[in-house]
C-alpha cells in the first residue's frame, strides 16, 4: 500500500518519458524490422548496406569522430592553459561564460556565422585573399565539406569540453603533483601515470557526449549545406520530409542505425568507464 503510494509520485514522469521518449523510439526500432504489411523482416537492415547509405554513415561517423577528438584535445588544452598554465586568474570567469554561450550557439545561426566568415565571400576568406593572396577555395577548401563541417561543429564542441573538463582539472590535487615530483617523476610521467588516469572517466564521458552531440545534429549541417553533403541525419531528414528513398521502412532502418551508433558509442563508454573507475567508490 505504502510503496504503491510512493510509486504514484513518479508516475507522471514515467508516463511522460514513455509517451514522448521511449515509445516513439521503440516504434522506430520496431519499424526497422517490419515490412509494409507489418510482418517481420531483415530486408530494411539489408537496405542499409546500399553504398549511398553506407557512405552517409561513414562520413557522419568521420565528422563526429573528428569533431569530438579535436573538440576534446583543443578544449582540454584551453582548459589546462587556464587552470594550470600560469595565466592570470581573471581569465577563467569570462572563458566559462563564453563557453556556456558558445556551447549552446548551435543550429541554424551557427551555420550563418560560418558562411559569413568562411563562405565564398566570408570575412576571413576575403581577408586571406586580399592580405596574403591566399585563395582557400582555390586550394580545395570548401565549407560544405567534411573539414568545413568539422570546423563548424568545433564551435560548440570545444566550449562543451571546456565546461565539463575545467572542474575536473581543478579537482586534481596539488599534492598529487608534488608527491609524484618528489618521488622522482617527470612532468610527463606524472600526467601519464597519475593525472590522465584520474581524468580518464571524465574525458571518456565528454568524448561520448561530443560524439552523440555532432552525430545527431541536423540544423547546422542542413542550413550550411542544404542537402549537398549527405550525412545520415540530413538524409533521414529529407526522407521524413519527402520519402527520397522511395521506401519508408528504409527510413526506420536509418533511424535505427543512428540509435545503434550512438548507443554503441555510449555502451563502449560505459564499459570503459567501469574499467577505468575500478579505483573509485
Amino acid at each position: 500500500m505504502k510503496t504503491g503510494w510512493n510509486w504514484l509520485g513518479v508516475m507522471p514522469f514515467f508516463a511522460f518519458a514513455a509517451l514522448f521518449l521511449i515509445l516513439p523510439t521503440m516504434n522506430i526500432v520496431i519499424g526497422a524490422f517490419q515490412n509494409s504489411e507489418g510482418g517481420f523482416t531483415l530486408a530494411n537492415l539489408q537496405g542499409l548496406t546500399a553504398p549511398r547509405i553506407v557512405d552517409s554513415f561513414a562520413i557522419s561517423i568521420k565528422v563526429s569522430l573528428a569533431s569530438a577528438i579535436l573538440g576534446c584535445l583543443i578544449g582540454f588544452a584551453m582548459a589546462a592553459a587556464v587552470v594550470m598554465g600560469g595565466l592570470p586568474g581573471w581569465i577563467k570567469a569570462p572563458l566559462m561564460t563564453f563557453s556556456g554561450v558558445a556551447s549552446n550557439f548551435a543550429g541554424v545561426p551557427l551555420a550563418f556565422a560560418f558562411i559569413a566568415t568562411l563562405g565564398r565571400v566570408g570575412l576571413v576568406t576575403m581577408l586571406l585573399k586580399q592580405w596574403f593572396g591566399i585563395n582557400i577555395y582555390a586550394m580545395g577548401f570548401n565549407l560544405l565539406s567534411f573539414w568545413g563541417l568539422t570546423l563548424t561543429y568545433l564551435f560548440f564542441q570545444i566550449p562543451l569540453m571546456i565546461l565539463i573538463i575545467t572542474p575536473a582539472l581543478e579537482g586534481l590535487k596539488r599534492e598529487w603533483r608534488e608527491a609524484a615530483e618528489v618521488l622522482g617523476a617527470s612532468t610527463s610521467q606524472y600526467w601519464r601515470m597519475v593525472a590522465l588516469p584520474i581524468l580518464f572517466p571524465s574525458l571518456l564521458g565528454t568524448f561520448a557526449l561530443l560524439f552523440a552531440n555532432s552525430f545527431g545534429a541536423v540544423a547546422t549541417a542542413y542550413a550550411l549545406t542544404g542537402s549537398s553533403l549527405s550525412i545520415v541525419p540530413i538524409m533521414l531528414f529529407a526522407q521524413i520530409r519527402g520519402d527520397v528513398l522511395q521506401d519508408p521502412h528504409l527510413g526506420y532502418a536509418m533511424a535505427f542505425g543512428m540509435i545503434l551508433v550512438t548507443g554503441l558509442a555510449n555502451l563502449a563508454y560505459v564499459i570503459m568507464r567501469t574499467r577505468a573507475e575500478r579505483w573509485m567508490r
Partner: protein
Amino acid sequence: MSFLTLDHLQKSFGDTKVVHDFDMRVEKGEFISFLGPSGCGKTTVLRMVAGFETPSAGRILIDGQDVTGLRPNQRQIGMVFQAYALFPNLTVADNVGFGLKVAGVPRAERGPRVAEMLDLIGLPQMGGRYPWQLSGGQQQRVALARALAPRPRVLLLDEPLSALDAKIRVSLRNQIREIQQQLGITTIFVTHDQEEALSISDRIVVMHRGVADQTGTPREIYNHPTTDFVANFVGTLNRFPAEVLDAATGRLRVGGTEIELGRPVGPGPLVLAARPEGLVLAETGIPAEVTGVEFLGSVQRLRARAAGQSIVMDRFNAPTAALPAPGETVHLCPLRSHWMVLAQPEAEIV
C-alpha cells in the same frame, strides 16, 4: 661535516619576508622537528628543502652536494604530506612502487622492495587495495612507505599527523620514530603540536615569524627556553612578575613574598616562570587562592590565582593526600631547579 645543511636560507613572497636567515646543520640519521604556529615559516623551509620553493637567498646541501638549483625530482627526497596525497587511481602496492617505477627499476626488483616496505609499516596484506579502502591512519602509513621505498637521502614530514584522530596520532608517531631509527634516515618533521615535537625529536627548532628562535633537544627547549616566545609556546608556563632586590644573589620579591634563587640575575624587572610541575604546595611561599581542581588520573591539576596571575600546578596523584578545595588559600613553594628567569616583555612593564 653535517649531512643536511641549510645555509642562511631566506624566502620572500613579493614584499613579505616569510623566512629570515634560517641557518641549520642536521647530522646524518637525526630526527629534527620544526615547531611553530601556523605562518611561522616552517612549512616554507620544508618546501625549500623539497624543491617546491626556490630560496630567495642561501643554499641547501645534502651530503655535501649543493641541491639549491635542482628540481624536486632530482633531489632523492622522500616526503609525506598532511592530506596523505596517495594517488587514488593506483593500488597500495603501485603507490609504494611509484618512485621505483619512475626511476626505471624493473618489475622483478620492485616487487620485493614493495613487500618489504608494506611489512615495515605493518600492512603486508593491503597491497591490492585502493587508497579509499583504507583508514586515514593506514593511508598515511602507505604514504610513508611510498616516500621511503626509493631509499631517499632525506625524509620530510609535513604535518603528517594533523588529519588523524588523537589516538591514531600517538600510535603513528611512535611508529614513525621507530621506522626512522631502524632505517637511520635523516628526517625533518614539521608540526605545530609541541607534544608531538617533544616526544619524537632528537632536536627541535622552534620557529617564530620566519626566524629559528631556539634550537635544542626537547629537554633543553622545555626546561631552558631562551626566548619568551619559546617559553610560552612549548608547554604551559606560570608567570610571576618579580622585583629584583639583590641581583647578585638572585633575591626577588614576588607578590609580597621574598624568594632567593641562589644565582645571579639581570637587573629587573623580571618575570619568574615555572612549569606546572615546578610548583609544590608548602607551609610558606607565594599565597594563592585555589579556583579549581581537576583530577586527570595520574596527575592532579590545580588552578589558582597568585600575584594577580592565573596559575596551573600539576602534581602526581597520591591516593591518601587530600585535595585542596576551591576557595581555599594555599602556599606555592618554588622548586629551585625548575624556576626560569625571563626578561619582562616590554608590554608588561607598567
